[in-house]
């Protein structure tokens, strides 16, 4: 199908630098997620790959072919917009048939009809073919936009947050469906989103982008468990990772404002690494354990019951930790509890370079 290679792409909009020497590789047949906050340059990257935007510097290769000066229509990649962009004056059938009627394809009508019938049955929208886009629900519009992309059997699908306008329940269903369509077509999916849960559940691999440059690329578990920088650690994971300032002095770790210290040897990740004086201990909410024989004492400040589990916030002289507990356990505000750290899963960052110490 198609692999994409972006080599130190630079793109300015006036004085604003949208992409800063960005390089990325999308493997053939992969479902790659480009994850980042709004304004990170995600959509600009997609538009550069599709040819709608020309980079100031840098090279783009699709299937090892340079795309310099190649028009969008000659790149054979489909673009699914966040707002679907269905032509309002055309029926659903004409919308989906539109690409096949362009000069690039010049397909005759009954071939088009056949292919549309196949695509629309996969997407379960055959009953909508006569209708105008304005009369469709959000989910239906989204499927028609997908159909228009699939009908040309492109080598590359470029998707700009296609699920973000759907309501919560529909989004869950569409995630499962997108995954099965990807497996069925075997095409390369290059999918942009700001929602880290979507990224974790959909992607074979995730590339985290912030302020125009790639921070980390890896499988979902790798991004979640071994974030390469503070940004990735904070951006991925809900609720946010807890960060505790610590000081290193002769192989013991002083958790300053909690008044507790741990021997360095407890943490295999820090073995034979030259550690800076100040480091940051990163603990995900599920990596702090409530046990009577815990080493740290705190007072419960807020309890949020999410049904499947509970998020409690514990105040420890000025610092608030977010902890995830099973929904059976029951606590109320003001109660004091003992906490302990899951040392194997702890993550360490250098506060100045904001880089992870385990790399």
């Amino acid at each position: 199908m198609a692999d994409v290679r972006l080599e130190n792409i630079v793109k300015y909009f006036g004085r604003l630098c949208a992409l800063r020497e960005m390089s990325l590789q999308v493997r053939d047949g992969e479902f790659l997620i480009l994850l980042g906050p709004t304004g990170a340059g995600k959509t600009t990257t997609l538009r550069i790959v599709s040819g709608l935007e020309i980079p100031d510097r840098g090279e783009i290769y699709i299937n090892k072919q340079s795309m310099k000066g190649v028009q969008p229509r000659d790149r054979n990649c489909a673009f699914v917009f966040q707002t679907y962009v269905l032509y309002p004056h055309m029926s659903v059938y004409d919308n989906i048939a539109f690409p096949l009627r362009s000069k690039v394809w010049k397909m005759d009508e009954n071939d088009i009809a056949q292919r549309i019938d196949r695509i629309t049955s996969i997407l379960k929208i055959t009953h909508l073919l006569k209708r105008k886009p304005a009369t469709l629900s959000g989910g239906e519009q989204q499927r028609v936009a997908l159909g228009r992309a699939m009908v040309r059997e492109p080598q590359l699908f470029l998707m700009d947050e296609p699920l973000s306008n759907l309501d919560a329940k529909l989004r869950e269903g569409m995630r499962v469906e997108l995954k099965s369509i990807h497996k069925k077509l075997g095409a390369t999916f290059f999918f942009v989103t700001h929602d880290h849960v979507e990224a974790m559940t959909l992607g074979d691999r995730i590339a985290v982008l912030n302020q125009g440059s790639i921070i980390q690329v890896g499988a979902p578990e790798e991004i979640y468990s071994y974030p390469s920088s503070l940004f990735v650690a904070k951006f991925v994971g809900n609720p946010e990772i807890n960060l505790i300032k610590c000081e290193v002095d002769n192989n013991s770790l002083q958790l300053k404002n909690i008044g507790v210290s741990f021997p360095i040897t407890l943490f295999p990740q820090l073995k034979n690494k030259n550690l800076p004086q100040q480091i940051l201990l990163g603990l995900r909410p599920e990596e702090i354990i409530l046990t009577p024989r815990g080493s740290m004492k705190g007072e419960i400040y807020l309890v949020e019951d999410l049904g499947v589990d509970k998020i409690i916030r514990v105040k420890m002289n000025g610092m608030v930790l977010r902890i995830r507990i099973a929904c059976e356990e029951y606590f109320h505000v003001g109660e004091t509890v003992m906490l302990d750290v899951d040392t194997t899963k702890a993550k360490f960052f250098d506060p100045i370079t904001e880089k992870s110490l385990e790399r």
Partner: protein
Amino acid sequence: MDDSKSFAYRKSLSEYRIKLFLIGPTILVLILMNVFPLFWSLILSFTNYSSMMTKKISLVGVANYSKVLNNPVLWKYFQTTAWFVIVAVGLEFLLGFSFALLLKEKFKGWGLVTTLMLIPMMLSPVVVGLFWTFIMDANFGLLNYIIGLFGINKVSWLTNPNIALFSVALVDVWMWTPFVMLISMTGLLAIPQSLYEAADIDMASWWFKFRKVTLPLVSPLLVLAVLFRVIDAFKMFDLIFIMTGGGPGDITETISMSLYRLAFNKFKTGESCALAYIILIMIIALSNLLIRWINRAKS
């Protein structure tokens, strides 16, 4: 496909060529049909050229300008125009805004009523001037009959010197009040209903809501409407020409009317070009004010 290098070059060129092809003709037409004539009349304003007499054209320097500037009669006409603008636009503002407030809440048939009320401004000033002259006729005019119902005796609207100008201003008000009403209504409807709901929740009285929410939010559009009207009223020619021709005497002679008379009755082309330029400078000043305000309203 030839090598991509030249292909890229051709693409960026074509975008430049598209822009040139699409915008060029319009700019060319505007220059040919607007800038060039203005430039031409600037030259004429420094000559004694007269479109009727065939005598030799000669440069007269700024004679035309000084003749026009210190001609007391012309300053009287400027005064008449200013008075006309103030009365007409003032009344239009008050009437237009009050009608807009009246029509803010939608009722059955709201669409029809508002559109019907907007017809006057769409009509040609000539047509309006004609039938208002008929209505304002001293003896068989409809207007005198209606005011008669209220016990006021007949008024010779267009021939009585001290109200002739007011009568023409009244017709201008009849014609352009709908414009101010439309613009202020657009402003009123643009205010989200949730702001009034929030004010209700905050226990605000009707007057407090009007002073603190409605007025401040609608004022940019009101100013825009008034600016548009001032420029238009300043240029007023058709109504005056049709209804009073500047009479009785030269009571209702606005500056445009006097320029028309200077150019097409007395055929003093050079001089009229000079007067034309003085008017043009005033209009450009007013238009700049409007353009700056359009930028503010747009942001």
